[in-house]
């Protein structure tokens, strides 16, 4: 789960990390009020869960109430990379002497937490990593030994910084590391960590992504995981327990397994356009596939559905019953192609066929999608 910037800043502040004065606004009037308390100029930051928000126009500076009204109004009626802006964070604008980078994540390959720092923070940090690797330093944390502050001091000395910054920054690293443990973070990041004219540090942005699998054991206040999903179809997917990603095509997809789903999308995309990605996970039941059919068809103008499932851990014959029931109850007329192999495959085919589903018995998804393409072609209006 990714937290919004304002949620992450609140957590960082509780842990003692210096953060800017700020307030969250959902209307232009709220923004005006907050800016009045902070004093101009202020920064307006769209609270949307995408990277590269600044370059996409989601961050503005307002120097006066009039300018703020215009900018806040504009942001609150805009979309950033397809996401509507519902909230904006109004922040004090500080004088920036230098922008640093601090990130803590899990290095998947070595299976250890890693702390990454750079003296060249800001939006182009990944460019810095490529073009000036000497300005980046990182340290892996041994999972049984754990983190200690001296590790940060040693890391920062490698960047050739003055001791005053090392001391202050090392404190921020220790605090962020504690957050990353308590909140089971996959990513905890401050970019930029600003050096103020007085030499102090300020975290002017905050990223915190929590391990979904660990949420139930984090005994700390957390925002609701479902409410935050902007897209109603994706939220519905979460509710019924499947991964649903909304796309802009017209071919519905139900698959078991993320890899199989991705491969299906890749093949569909060769000459059609997927309407969604849907991955059931290992918990298929008749009811689940009934709901999946409903979810896929919530989107208007779906021209066909492709079902691609394997009976390994999943009882696909049960799933088939749900699909068949949905088709009958809702009198689904668009073509449905299914590839369903594995344990109890013949039984599954039987159920699907009797509901009018086009069952493909070859193994290759390519073949099934060829069949789908024929049907969609025939069916084209």
């Amino acid at each position, binding site marked *: 789960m990714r937290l919004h910037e304002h949620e992450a800043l609140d957590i960082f502040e509780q842990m003692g990390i210096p953060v800017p004065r700020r307030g969250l606004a959902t209307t232009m009037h709220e923004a005006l009020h907050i800016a009045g308390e902070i004093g101009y100029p202020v920064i307006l930051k769209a609270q949307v869960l995408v990277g590269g928000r600044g370059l996409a126009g989601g961050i503005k500076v307002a120097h006066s109430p009039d300018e703020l009204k215009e900018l806040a109004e504009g942001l609150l009626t805009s979309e950033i990379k397809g996401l509507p802006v519902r909230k904006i964070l109004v922040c004090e604008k500080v004088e920036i002497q230098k922008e640093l980078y601090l990130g803590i994540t899990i290095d998947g390959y070595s299976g250890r937490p890693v702390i990454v720092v750079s003296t060249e923070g800001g939006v182009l940090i990944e460019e810095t990593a490529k073009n000036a690797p000497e300005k980046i330093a990182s340290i892996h944390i041994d999972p049984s030994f754990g983190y200690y502050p001296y590790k940060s001091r040693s890391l920062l000395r490698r960047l050739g910084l003055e001791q005053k910054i090392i001391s202050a920054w090392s404190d921020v690293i220790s605090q962020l590391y504690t957050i990353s443990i308590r909140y089971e973070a996959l*990513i905890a990041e401050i970019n930029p960590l600003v050096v103020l004219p007085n030499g102090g540090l300020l975290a002017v942005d905050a990223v915190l*992504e929590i391990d979904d699998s660990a949420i139930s054991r984090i005994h700390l206040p957390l925002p609701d995981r479902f409410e935050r999903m902007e897209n109603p179809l994706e939220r519905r997917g979460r509710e019924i327990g499947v991964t649903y990603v909304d796309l802009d095509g017209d071919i519905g997809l139900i698959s078991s397994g993320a*890899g199989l789903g991705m*491969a299906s*999308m890749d093949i569909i995309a060769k000459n059609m356009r997927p309407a969604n990605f849907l991955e059931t996970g290992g918990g298929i039941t008749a009811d689940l596939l009934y709901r999946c059919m409903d979810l896929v068809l919530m989107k208007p103008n779906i021209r066909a559905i492709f079902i691609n*499932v394997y009976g390994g851990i999943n009882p696909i014959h049960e799933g088939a019953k749900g699909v068949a029931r949905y088709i009958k109850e809702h009198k689904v007329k668009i073509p449905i192609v299914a590839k369903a192999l594995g344990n109890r495959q013949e039984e599954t085919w039987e159920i699907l066929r009797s509901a009018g589903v086009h069952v493909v018995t070859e193994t*290759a998804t390519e073949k099934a999608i060829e069949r789908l393409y024929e049907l969609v072609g025939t069916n084209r209006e």
Partner: protein
Amino acid sequence: MSVLIDDSTRVLVQGITGRIGSVQTHWMLEYGTKVVAGVTPGKGGTEVEGVPVFNSVEEAVKETGANASVFFVPAAFVLDAFLETVDAGIKLIVVVPEHIPVRDVIKMRHYAIEKGVFAIGPTTPGILSPGKGKMGIMPASLFRPGRVGIISRSGTLSYEFAGILSEVNVGQSTVVGMGADPVILRNLADILELFERDNDTDGVIIVGEVGGEQEEKAAGFIARRMTKPVAAYIAGRYSPQGKRMGHAGAIIRGSAGTVEAKQEALRAAGVEVLDSPIHAAQWAIKHKLR
């Protein structure tokens, strides 16, 4: 011999009394796997599918000589049970469950490596050696014996590739699900090494996915050490990106983890990159792999 599973493999099923554990025990037995024991704390003394259930791994090992374990334990209890299993001397562990907290996986990974245990998963369909046995949830009908190894990040795509090969009479030596989590218990390169050393394997197919850096790192291993032909398919070219936040991962990797970057790294290592799963069949036939 074959990779990981052979005639001496005596399988313990952890969480055998659960819904999935008991069903999968049935399928594993039906496939000829030597399932010798199950463990569910508190359910010792009962039987599932004729297999005796014990309260602890220690007892199960002592009573049955189990030397490999497959997990169907609820995610929250996997870490504890895993450490118990390592301490009991089991040297091969397959962790099927998904949704295990990544910090638990980190602990499991380090403990297993430190103790010389070969563990795969989590979120894996397991291991299947056609005609010899299986540990996990792979549906047996799609596999047939032969000399191609498959290593897959995705469970269902591993079935797809095996099925595509089987349809053209290309059999498999062993199919291994490496697991799909951000941290896995053994990396792709470690598993490739087993296939490189295996006398029953003549070539290997890697079934990868967008994200992470398993395939890029494996490319390095292949360039340096693999003598057998390798093909690779990377799923997720069409997957929507752009919602990524945070740069730390990309900075460490120095790679974007995109399908293109992975394909390029693999190609540079001499791997044949497959554009679609169905091309696996031609590749195997071209290399005369049966």
